[in-house]
C-alpha cells in the first residue's frame, strides 16, 4: 500500500496566489481523507510552455509527492480534471524507480568504501600467492 506517486500539474498563469493556495490545501485534504499522505509540495513557478495548452503559453507548475494507494490518485485526478484553472496534469509512480536508484546508490557507496581501504593489504596478500601457484606448474 505504500506506493509513492509524483503528481505534476499546470495551473493557468492568471490565477491569483491565494486561489492557488486554496486549491493546494483542498488537494491535501483530499489526500489525507483518502488515507494517503503528502510528502512534499513544490511550486516550480511560472514557466513558458513548450506548446499552447488551452490557448495559454505560460503556466504555473506545481509538483506534489504523495504516498498512498492508487485510489488516492484516482480521486485526485478526478478533482483536477474538474478544476477549471488546472490545464494539464501528469501522475508518475516513483516508488519502484526510487528503489532502483537507492540500490544503485548503495552499490556505489559500498564500492567507494572498499576502494578507500588501504590497497597495500590487498597487494601484500596477492604477492605470495602467484609465485606459490607457479612453482608446482613448472615442476
Amino acid at each position, binding site marked *: 500500500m505504500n506506493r509513492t506517486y509524483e503528481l*505534476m500539474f*499546470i495551473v493557468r498563469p492568471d490565477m491569483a496566489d491565494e486561489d492557488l493556495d486554496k486549491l493546494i490545501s483542498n488537494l491535501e485534504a483530499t489526500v489525507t481523507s483518502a488515507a494517503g499522505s503528502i510528502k512534499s509540495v513544490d511550486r516550480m513557478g511560472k514557466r*513558458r*510552455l*513548450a*506548446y499552447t*495548452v488551452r490557448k495559454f503559453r505560460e*503556466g504555473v507548475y506545481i*509538483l506534489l509527492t504523495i504516498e498512498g494507494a492508487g485510489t488516492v490518485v484516482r480521486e485526485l485526478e478526478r478533482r483536477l480534471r474538474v478544476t477549471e484553472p488546472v490545464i*494539464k*496534469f*501528469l501522475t*508518475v509512480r516513483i516508488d519502484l524507480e526510487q528503489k*532502483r*536508484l537507492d540500490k*544503485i*546508490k548503495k552499490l*556505489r557507496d559500498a564500492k567507494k568504501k572498499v576502494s578507500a581501504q588501504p590497497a597495500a593489504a590487498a597487494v601484500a596478500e596477492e604477492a605470495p600467492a602467484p609465485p606459490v601457484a607457479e612453482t608446482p606448474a613448472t615442476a
Partner: protein
Amino acid sequence: MPEETKAPTIERPSGEGHRSDGPRSGGDRPRFGGGGGGRSGPGGPPREGGRKFFRRKKVCKFCTEKIADINYKDYRLLGQFVAESGKIVPRRLTGVCSPHQHRLAAAIKQARNIALLPFAGRAS
C-alpha cells in the same frame, strides 16, 4: 586515309588500347581483398573515404557520467537528445546504449505530455 588510321584507335570501346591486360586478369585479387576487408569491418576504415564506417567511437553519456536517474523533469538533459524538430534522436547518432535509450525515450514522452518539451517544433 589519315582519318582511317586515326579512327580505330579512338573508336575502341573496350578501352583496352589505353589499359594493359595486367590489372584485368589480376583483377580478381584486388576485388577479393576489397570484399574481405569491407566485410570484416569498419575497424577504422581500411581504406580512405571511410566516412561510411565509424566516425570515432561514441560512448553512452549516461554510462560514462554514471547518471542513474533519467527524469522527465530535467528537460535540459533531455533536450540534448532531441532534434531541432522536436524528434528523439536515434541512438546511432548519440551513442547512447540501449537500456538508457529506452528510459530516455520514456522520459522525453512524459516531458512532452507535461509541456516541458514540444511534440514538434523548436524547444523553447
